[in-house]
């Protein structure tokens, strides 16, 4: 694309980098717009779902009967609010923290495939990259808690540090199962490995992946700092935790980070466990024939259908997380930590072991129907073994 732009503008070779830069910025803006749309929809869904759960209507005024424009109104209100920086705070870090918390989540969407091949940058370690980048969000929150110069914020930041760092471990462990089954960390390949009917999805691959999926769900909720694991903000204990002193725009950036992280973990979970862009019924294959078909238009349509599938699954995930928030009380910090280390982590490790054994013992599945595999790992092993054993 950059090359094309460069040719079109007939740039001399010295100025080719301008084209690169322009294209990069354009792509970033598109991605940002996408993320912001997701965030806006998530906030709207949050208010609407909360309203319905609580026997209320939720927003109804702004933008017609269903309050579609509520996120816009909220945003406008937040932008016009007074922007306070407490006298005790470290102004530089205080300003920096919300952006440090939002930027990594944005980075996640760079590697997250929306459909077969619809991905901003095709990493071959995408799953790992996303897990790694998601873990960075915590630093902005710790920093915000520390820089606020408030004891409540400090407590919130310390809770966040302890909680998120702990939950990363079982989260990564449970995410390892699909990686193991697909034999690759490439999310596109993992998604493709679950093509076909819904029983090809990794969540239904064997009992262990099913367990791992629920561990992933718990850890994803905990890792994104959502209720019932919102101990870092815990409004009834720590006033508002790490964002006690934040207001207006900076506060909203924290929230954008939270909602974007929700969408991100849902997206990752969908690709890893719920078949990604493959619908429960292989409609796309019936309609458009097998993948990589001839016509680019057919290909595009099939990918579009995949993206719709993916987005619907993500929305279901987000709504599930929202309804959790409005149903459950909040556990205590020691309970959260012991749940992580005493239940989630050993269970995830056991599931990992079990899934390994399952693949070894029943390579063709329980019913012998077999599973489509990307099998790069196996290939790699075979190549290596052959190389070593053939002199």
């Amino acid at each position, binding site marked *: 694309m950059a090359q094309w732009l460069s040719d079109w503008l007939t740039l001399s070779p*010295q100025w080719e980098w301008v084209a690169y830069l322009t294209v990069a910025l354009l792509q970033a803006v598109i991605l940002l717009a996408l993320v912001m749309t997701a965030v806006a929809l998530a906030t709207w869904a949050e208010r609407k779902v909360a309203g319905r759960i609580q026997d209320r209507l939720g927003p109804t005024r702004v933008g017609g009967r269903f309050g579609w424009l509520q996120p816009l109104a909220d945003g406008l209100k937040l932008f016009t609010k007074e922007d306070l920086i407490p006298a005790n705070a470290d102004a530089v870090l205080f300003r920096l923290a919300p952006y440090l918390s939002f930027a990594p989540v944005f980075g996640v969407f760079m590697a997250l495939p929306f459909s077969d091949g619809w991905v901003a940058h095709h990493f*071959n370690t995408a799953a790992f990259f996303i897990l790694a980048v998601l873990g960075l969000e915590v630093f902005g929150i710790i920093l915000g808690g520390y820089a606020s110069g408030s004891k409540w914020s400090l407590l919130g930041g310390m809770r966040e540090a*302890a909680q998120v760092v702990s939950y*990363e471990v079982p989260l990564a462990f449970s995410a390892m199962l699909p990686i193991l089954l697909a034999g690759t960390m490439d999310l596109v390949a993992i998604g493709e490995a679950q093509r076909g009917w819904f029983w090809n999805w990794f969540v239904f691959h064997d009992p262990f992946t099913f367990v791992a999926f629920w561990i992933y769900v718990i850890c994803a909720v905990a890792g994104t700092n959502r209720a019932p694991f919102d101990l870092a903000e815990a409004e009834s204990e720590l006033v508002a935790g790490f964002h006690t002193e934040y207001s207006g725009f900076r506060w909203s950036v924290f929230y954008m980070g939270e909602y974007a992280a929700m969408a991100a973990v849902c997206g990752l979970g969908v690709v890893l466990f719920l078949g990604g862009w493959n619908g429960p019924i292989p409609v796309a294959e019936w309609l458009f024939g097998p993948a990589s078909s001839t016509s680019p238009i057919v290909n595009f349509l099939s990918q579009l259908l995949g993206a719709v599938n993916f987005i619907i699954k993500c929305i279901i995930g987000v709504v599930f997380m929202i309804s959790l928030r409005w149903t459950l009380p909040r556990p205590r910090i020691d309970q959260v930590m012991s749940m992580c280390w005493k239940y989630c982590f050993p269970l995830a490790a056991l599931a990992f072991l079990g899934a390994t054994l399952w693949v070894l013992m029943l390579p063709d599945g329980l019913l012998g129907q077999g599973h489509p595999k990307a099998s790069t790992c196996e290939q*790699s092993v075979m190549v290596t073994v052959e190389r070593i054993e053939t002199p």
Partner: protein
Amino acid sequence: MTGPDGMAILFWLFAIVTCGGALVVVLSRHIVRAAVGLILSLFGVAMLFLLAGAEFVGAMQLMIYVGGTVVLLAFGVMLTARRPLLPLSTTRDQWLAAVLLACPLTVILVQAALSYAPTDSVSAQVDAHSGVSTPVGMLPVTPARLGMALLGFSQDNHRPDGGEVSHGDSGYLLPFELISVHLLVVLIGAAYLARREVPSGMTPRDNQGQLQ
């Protein structure tokens, strides 16, 4: 001379982030700001790894270093500096000594870097979007290959003296096992060291969980 390509732009961007972060670490007088500088610096390093074609290691850098180690450091800062933003006092003498030592070292290192001539000095011309341009006949560095290497399978398939490798010749199984044991020891040791007596007269009830 042609203009910088995509990789060059990104390299310079992240090189500046890395070095800027490092400078923040040295020049800031507040420990938390130093930690933020370290974050920036390590993040830049991770991105440089990605650019150099080491995707797995780059992600690892993000996860372990930036997400783990530095959060640990920040945690330490919070636990040990209750008064927000504890300034670090540095005397003039210390700075003098540091600069005196750093200057010759810098000169030597720069000399070494400049005098370095790659034996096969073919520099890369890589398209920023296709990522790694691997020569024919060479497998890309996938995590699978790294994993195989750690399990004792040689991946490079060549010995320094040019001979063919045999089983276990240049794998990393032993270091891998050693480091696993090492990690376990460290885990127990760190937990032992950081353990703290419950304040006297304070017995948290059993059902209220342990804090340590």
